[in-house]
């Protein structure tokens, strides 16, 4: 069988029956597997080591968040949203609060918008650092070169979490956004800490990039692997770096600005490679761009209030208009995180009637059956790692 062959397969085939005549081996990769980035199960139909068919089965981390959102008031939702994409909680909070603000028509003060931009870019860096580490971990092995790079990227991620802690008091699940602005103002010395952190990262990023791109084994393992062509990527609804690596120049930061992105220039990285290596390139380029944006903004945060509404006192303080519905999307490190919100639920409208989350990782998972066919078992982890899925977000 030609390893480069990649016919469009029909994902609606009866996937649980193995064709006995074809003599395939069914291998359940996951949900307990060291490199499935959480609890994803991929059912592989193997001819030797070559994948004939691959079917991802998400859902092992389903926590019923969308249903939970119908019973919690808008004020209570933010900490829940922290836990979807547990690698980028900051942008998740922002997605929710922007949705609520747009529905209520609340204006966010300029200072808060700048702060949110900085936080979003820092979160993008932290998330991409974690991705780089785990991606090379998948390719290089837990006991091997991949683990070395992972240790370095985790070391770089720590100072970013430290500046988050300085601002919000929490390293991870921040609960720092609220309707109308932010909860925590910038403390003294924060800008200096962020700048130190960025200087350090900017100095070391070229090393990490070089460790990958000058390694011939890394290039052999990534180039031409897991190709997702542009039409397929658009059809499957891929967003974020995965879509940009398939040659589509789309970034909500530039094309549908939120926060303070309308006041600054965002250079969007696009690659036409469509393969695992292109996704690597795009994310690395985004990291340099994020460092640039943070450095540009950190000295120019305008003075003023950080929240346009009065501080939260009771949980049902914010009421959503009945029957009004709205879709809001922002660009998170993983792509377009959309929130479909219908107002006027329980607690006299303090809860959403319905809240549907559009997670970018779920759509990235949909590309797996196409991207994996014709490759070998070893490539599964490389392709999966390059798509950067977070199972908490996929399953919600």
């Amino acid at each position, binding site marked *: 069988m030609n390893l480069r062959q990649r016919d469009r397969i029909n994902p609606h085939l009866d996937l649980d029956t193995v064709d006995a005549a074809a003599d395939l081996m069914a291998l359940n990769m996951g949900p307990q597997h060291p490199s499935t980035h959480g609890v994803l199960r991929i059912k592989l139909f193997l001819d030797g080591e070559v994948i004939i068919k691959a079917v991802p089965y998400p859902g092992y981390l389903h926590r019923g968040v969308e249903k939970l959102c119908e019973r919690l008031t808008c004020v209570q939702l933010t900490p829940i949203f922290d836990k979807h994409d547990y690698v980028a909680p900051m942008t998740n909070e922002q997605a929710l609060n922007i949705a609520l603000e747009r529905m209520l028509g609340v204006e966010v003060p300029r200072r808060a918008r700048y702060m949110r931009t900085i936080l979003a870019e820092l979160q993008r860096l932290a998330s991409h650092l974690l991705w780089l580490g785990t991606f090379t971990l998948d390719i290089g092995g*837990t006991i091997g070169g991949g683990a070395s790079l992972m240790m370095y990227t985790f070391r770089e991620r720590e100072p970013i979490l430290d500046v988050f802690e300085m601002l919000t008091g929490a390293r991870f699940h921040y609960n720092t956004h609220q309707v109308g602005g932010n909860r925590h103002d910038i403390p003294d010395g924060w800008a200096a800490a962020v700048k130190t952190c960025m200087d350090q990262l900017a100095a070391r990023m070229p090393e990490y990039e070089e460790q990958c791109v000058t390694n011939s084994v890394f290039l052999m393992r990534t180039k031409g692997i897991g190709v997702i062509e542009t039409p397929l990527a658009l059809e499957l609804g891929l967003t974020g770096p995965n879509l940009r690596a398939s040659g589509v120049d789309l970034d909500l930061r530039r094309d549908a600005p939120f926060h303070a992105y309308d006041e600054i220039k965002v250079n969007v990285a696009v690659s036409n490679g469509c393969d695992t290596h292109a996704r690597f390139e795009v994310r690395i380029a985004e990291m340099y761009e994020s460092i640039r944006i943070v450095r540009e903004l950190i000295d120019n945060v305008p003075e003023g209030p950080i929240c346009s509404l009065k501080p939260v006192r009771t949980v049902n303080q914010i009421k959503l208009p009945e029957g009004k519905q709205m879709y809001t999307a922002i660009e998170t490190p993983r792509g377009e995180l959309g929130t479909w919100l219908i107002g006027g639920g329980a607690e006299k409208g303090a809860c959403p009637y319905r809240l549907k989350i559009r997670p970018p990782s779920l759509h990235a998972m949909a590309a797996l059956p196409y991207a994996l066919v014709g490759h070998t078992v070893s490539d599964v982890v490389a392709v999966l790692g390059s798509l950067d899925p977070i199972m908490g977000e996929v399953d919600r």
Partner: protein
Amino acid sequence: MIPNPWLNGLVVGGAVLAVLMTLGALASWWERKFSARLQGRVGTTILGPWGILQPFADAAKMIQKEDLIPRDADRVLFYIAPLFPVTLVLGLAAVIPFAGYWADGVWHGAAMVADVDVGVLFVLALSGLMVFPLWMAGWASNNKYSLLAAMRAVAQGVSYEIPMVLAALVPVIASGKLSVTGVIAWQAEHGWIVARLPVVGFLAFVLFYLTSLAEANRIPFDIPEAESELVGGVITEYTGIKSGLFILSEYLHTLVASAVATGMFLGGGHVPGLAGLPIWAQVVISLAAMWFKTLALFVSIYWIRWSWYRFRSDQLMELCWRYLVPGGLGLVASTAVAVSLGWV
């Protein structure tokens, strides 16, 4: 050294066994410290000075662990498979002279268990057998990951055996000897293979070193135990001391393979300036030299392991059959030509 071969086997064999087992255990500690330094960590610190007693605690833990046998596993094969790797690897060490001395203008091997006439062949044969326990374990485990890993292990072992033999033929042809002692004695007289055969000797050494990495399942050739793809490779289903034996055999294999490469290409225990010294001093110095060279190779293997990524299995086969095998044939041919023309 000791005239009676039985007594020699008992004394030297016991000593080699003790040293290798201790070093094999210490190697795991050393690797933890080394990788920790490489990654900006500290490594083991708690047990003993610098955590040096950690491997013994690990061994105690492994012996205590519950011994699980998967349902529907082939119980006999599952039981005996872990016994082979360590045995085979220690067998490899039997024909390596760990020291040597000049007597009557001839280099003699010392501190070796058995001076086998066909020592090189013995080494290659035992290395070839290393595939069997892996396949036994992979098949007997009744686990698909283990089976895939065993398939890869067999493909890799059989393929890389060929360039390894070809690389080993270079010193054999050059020296005209088939025993490890003979090869080292020739090198002591004429110069180490790496330097004595310009370019060819060095390339053969690199080839032998690479294929040793592959035989010992070390990155970038550790496809059979690719833990990010195949969970634990062939040892996925093994628990306790059985998996411990597999892991120990890998450390020992790296160590012994380094010793073999040292003997075949780096002159074994020979260093210049030994002639004329009393025999005991020669033995001590050559023993130290042998271990220094061996451990230097050993360190480089782990350096590669902690900074490189892993090949894919088909790329590994491609590398072997497209580049290493023709390259090895070329090296053998050029050595043969050089020897027949009297250049060496």
